[in-house]
């Protein structure tokens, strides 16, 4: 069905079900309970899961398949956001033209950057994309925000003002992005006993788009084009001596992943009509690299997992403070309790980036395949343990 084999179809269905029922799944604890802080079913957090998921899926099409490590993808995200806000300013708050233009602009921009950067490979490619991203950041932050030609509104960030044209903005419409009248911030809250679940229009728009682009990425992975991209990663010499030109292939992959980033940027603006230059900084590009690696480079589900994992723990870790820690470890004797809290303290709250950095290093060192590989290893281990248990009855374990 859908041109997918059984495994891929199952994967797609699982992802679809999980995203559509996320408001339930992410709010497993009653709203008033102490555990409610681990709930992640707020609209804006769920939107972030999805948007960064899209960003990472796209990044993975480039890095996972071709092995070209770009440190400049945040630039496309930023371009997408700016394009979307401009659509809001000029036309109306409808998200369709905004997201459309975001994808187109990011695509055009990535053709330009990709055409130049892909003339080099390896670390030179990484450094070139890094240089481009920093340049784009500088352009957005200061160069393109002068009074004569204000494209980005510099430090303040681009936003919609009352005196903007908004030629199609209807009378009586609210000043917020909408999808043909459905406002992105409209939320329906459902209370079931002690639980409360939020269904947000913006989230569902993002979710449906993500399922669609996830499906597209499966198709790309399984296509002849996807195989060519993996061939480029595997052996470029053989590639060109087989009569295939690697450059248009990598450029196409670069542009596709740039458009994914643009889509993510457009959605970001659709959820909150504001675009700032800091979205383009290379540390933001680093973040999507982290997500992809952490989840599992070159796997279908990895980037989505990585994005969800990082955004979820970012949210949780930032909320934990010393008081909460003391509550948790209250069962320990006083001295030990203080010591444990003291040890954990640097990693929580504002220390989330430290935790992230350490986690990332551990993954690169010990688990290059990311969470997906980790899952596979655990699966194998359980299987082999099951088997060796059977064997011990008769023979020595294989180890």
């Amino acid at each position, binding site marked *: 069905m859908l041109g997918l084999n059984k495994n891929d179809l199952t994967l797609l269905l699982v992802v679809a079900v999980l995203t559509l029922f996320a408001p339930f799944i992410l709010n497993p604890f009653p709203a008033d309970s102490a555990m409610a802080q681990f709930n992640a079913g707020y609209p804006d957090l769920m939107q972030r899961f999805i948007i960064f998921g899209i960003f990472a899926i796209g990044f993975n099409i480039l890095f996972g398949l071709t092995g070209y490590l770009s440190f400049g993808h945040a630039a496309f995200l930023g371009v997408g956001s700016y394009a979307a806000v401009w659509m809001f300013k000029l036309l109306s708050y409808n998200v369709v033209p905004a997201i459309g233009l975001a994808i187109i602009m990011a695509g055009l921009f990535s053709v330009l950057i990709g055409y130049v950067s892909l003339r080099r490979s390896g670390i030179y490619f990484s450094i070139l994309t890094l240089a481009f991203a920093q340049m784009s950041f500088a352009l957005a932050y200061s160069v393109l925000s002068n009074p004569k030609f204000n494209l980005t509104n510099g430090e303040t960030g681009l936003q919609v003002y009352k005196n903007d044209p908004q030629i199609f903005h209807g009378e009586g419409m609210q000043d917020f992005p909408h999808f043909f009248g459905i406002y992105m911030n409209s939320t329906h809250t459902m209370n079931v006993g002690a639980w409360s679940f939020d269904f947000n229009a913006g989230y569902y728009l993002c979710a449906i788009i993500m399922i669609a682009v996830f499906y597209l990425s499966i198709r790309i992975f399984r*296509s*002849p*084009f996807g195989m*060519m991209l993996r*061939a480029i990663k595997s052996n470029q010499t*053989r590639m060109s001596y087989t*009569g295939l*030109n690697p450059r248009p292939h990598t450029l196409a992959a670069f542009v596709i992943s740039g458009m994914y980033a643009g889509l993510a940027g457009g959605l970001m603006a659709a959820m909150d009509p504001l675009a700032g230059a800091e979205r383009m900084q290379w540390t933001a590009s680093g973040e999507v690299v982290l997500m992809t690696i952490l989840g599992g480079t070159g796997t279908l589900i990895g980037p989505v997992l990585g994005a969800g994992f990082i955004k979820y723990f970012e949210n949780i870790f930032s909320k934990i403070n010393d008081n909460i820690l003391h509550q948790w470890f209250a069962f320990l004797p006083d001295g030990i309790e203080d010591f444990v809290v003291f040890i954990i303290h640097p990693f929580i709250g504002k220390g989330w980036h430290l935790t992230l950095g350490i986690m990332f290093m551990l993954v690169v060192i010990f688990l290059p395949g990311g969470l997906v590989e980790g899952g596979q290893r655990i699966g194998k281990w359980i299987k082999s343990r099951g088997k060796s248990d059977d064997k011990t009855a008769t023979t020595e374990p294989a180890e």
Partner: protein
Amino acid sequence: MGILEVKDVGKRFGGLQALGDVNLSVKENSVHAIIGPNGAGKSTLLNCLVGKLIPDTGSVMFDGQSVLGRSPHEINQMGISRVFQTPEIFGDLSVMENMMIPCFASRDGAFRMHAVKNMMTEKDIVEKAEAMLVDMNMADKRHMHADSMSRGDKRRLEIGMCLAQEPRLLLLDEPTAGMARADTNNTIDLLKQISDERDITIAIIEHDMHVVFSLAQRITVLAQGTPLVEDDPENIKGHPKVREAYLGEAA
């Protein structure tokens, strides 16, 4: 007129004259060997033929068209396939995928984007690749990771990938280097079979005289960047100049 005509090709690397006035003519549907001691310029010559290097002087014509200034993939699309000294295959891909890629390349050219088609639904490609695997005696290995195969199998796969493109000229760069005797003999048999059964010209660079004399119909001896002599194998064996330059030191 041969299918491959090399005229007065010269190449310098700094102060080193790697090739000087090389002339070579490879007849269609023959097996032509290029031999010579280390540093004779064999690999440099080969690299000039496939577009990796551009000679300083002279011309290289393939089937009446110049190959100079074209990039490797363009030259390949003209009908020249190359087998490397150490097998160059797509190590991270399966054997079947390895075989499908050249099939796509010869059907669709240097770049065509099939981004949403499922590759296994491309019936013609799948059939062709499977047939080629059967020809190469590798059908049972189709799901294997290409990197996990033995060196002999990798060589076999690489040759198969080149043949899948139905090239008119197959260039082999020391195809048996570093192989065990049994693998070497298998490779010789395979190449013999290929040249007998197919409309194909083979040019081979080789060190191993056993390989050269079992395969070649014509031999060019290269020494210090210039062709010493070009003749039939029988005459090469007894040629005094060749003995001096090459076989002499080997014997």
